[in-house]
């Protein structure tokens, strides 16, 4: 085996640790053999095919690992869960976070009696809640339109996961900074210009990175929705417009307001569509919640 193929195999084998132990024990050898076959076929076609292989294999590995872990944890059959319904609820929740968290950040005052608590709520909403809602919504969308646009929807999910991780990181930085200020009032950190500059730049930079990943996610969803016609034209256009605005938040921070506003409209529209689809799914004749497929 060539050196590059051997290295690719090692990387893939290491990534198999993302799967639960039982699944890995059962299928690791076969997954590796299959990957080696795919790698050989791609290597024969050149660099572009190799890049395409990794772009197919990595998102597939991540999401199938999540699915297997969920099945192991909850002993559930994934497709029996009305994922469209969860996606719809997550979408509405995303809309709520887009409205409530910025309002708290803009109007809150840390010196108020409930100030610190309000900021903590905002960090929770704009961090973990926003992240989980986004990933759940995109996951539900991928289940819905992913068969007709698999690569774009897998990449959209990957971008959503990156945006989610980045926004959780921002929330952690914000929260840690505030708590440190509160715990150590004797340091008068709020008057320390160096800390203020570092903190502001750090939060702004990481948020902009999150916005950039969100931009990719929305552009990919909009494009997949447009070409497959599985999303209304208007919604696809909104996704793309918001996505393009969000992609360049790091250059034009003023875009953040536009992204937030479009985000609210998209979340509500998408939430209604997913809830309707979820209702149709659960009411489909002959299909029951315990049905495995």
């Amino acid at each position: 085996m060539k050196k590059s193929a051997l290295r690719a195999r090692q990387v893939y084998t290491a990534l198999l640790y993302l799967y639960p132990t039982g699944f890995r024990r059962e299928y690791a050898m076969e997954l590796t053999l299959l990957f080696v076959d795919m790698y050989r076929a791609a290597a024969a076609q050149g660099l572009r095919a190799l890049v395409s292989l990794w772009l197919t294999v990595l998102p597939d590995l991540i999401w199938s690992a999540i699915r297997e872990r969920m099945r192991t944890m909850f002993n559930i059959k994934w497709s029996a869960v009305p994922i469209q319904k969860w996606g719809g609820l997550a979408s509405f929740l995303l809309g709520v976070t887009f409205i409530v968290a910025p309002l708290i950040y803009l109007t809150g005052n840390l010196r108020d009696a409930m100030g610190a608590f309000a900021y903590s709520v905002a960090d929770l909403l704009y961090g973990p809640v926003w992240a989980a809602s986004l990933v759940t919504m995109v996951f539900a969308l991928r289940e819905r339109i992913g068969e007709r646009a698999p690569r774009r929807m897998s990449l959209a999910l990957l971008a959503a996961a990156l945006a989610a991780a980045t926004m959780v990181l921002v929330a952690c930085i914000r929260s840690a900074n505030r708590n440190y200020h509160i715990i150590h009032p004797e340091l008068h950190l709020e008057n320390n210009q160096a800390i203020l500059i570092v903190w502001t730049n750090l939060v702004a930079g990481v948020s902009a990175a999150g916005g950039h990943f969100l931009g990719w996610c929305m552009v990919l969803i909009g494009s997949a929705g447009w070409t497959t016609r599985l999303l209304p034209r208007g919604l696809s256009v909104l996704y793309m417009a918001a996505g393009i605005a969000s992609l360049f938040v790091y250059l034009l921070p003023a875009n953040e307001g536009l992204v937030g506003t479009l985000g609210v409209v998209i979340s509500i529209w998408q939430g209604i569509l997913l809830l309707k689809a979820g209702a149709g799914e659960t009411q489909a004749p002959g299909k029951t919640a315990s049905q495995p497929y």
Partner: protein
Amino acid sequence: MKQSRRDPQSFLPLTPAFFNILLALADGEKHGYAIMQEVIAHTGGTLRLGPGTLYGAIKRLLEDDLIEEIAERPDPAHDDERRRYYGLTEFGQRVAAAEAGRLQELVQLARDRRLLPDKVPMRGTE
């Protein structure tokens, strides 16, 4: 036999991934890579199963006895003996047939409503 008493209809509708894996196994036992290639070939490349999705589906199909692992290993001279081969069970054939029948009914409905011409050209004959 316990399995054959189950109603194939209770498994419908199958997802495209499950149905295509069963279709790929309908003409004989195959290993994972061969299933993947067969699915790409018979869907004209519109459905590409990643390794994780494929083996996740295989695991579930095994759990529900729609497919089985074939105990016989190929001749090591012809293939890697570590590969596992899978085949359709009798119940899996009935489930796949039931799904094909369901899809046929939908196609007939589409014809009745003039969404499709009476005779649809086969893939590659256009």
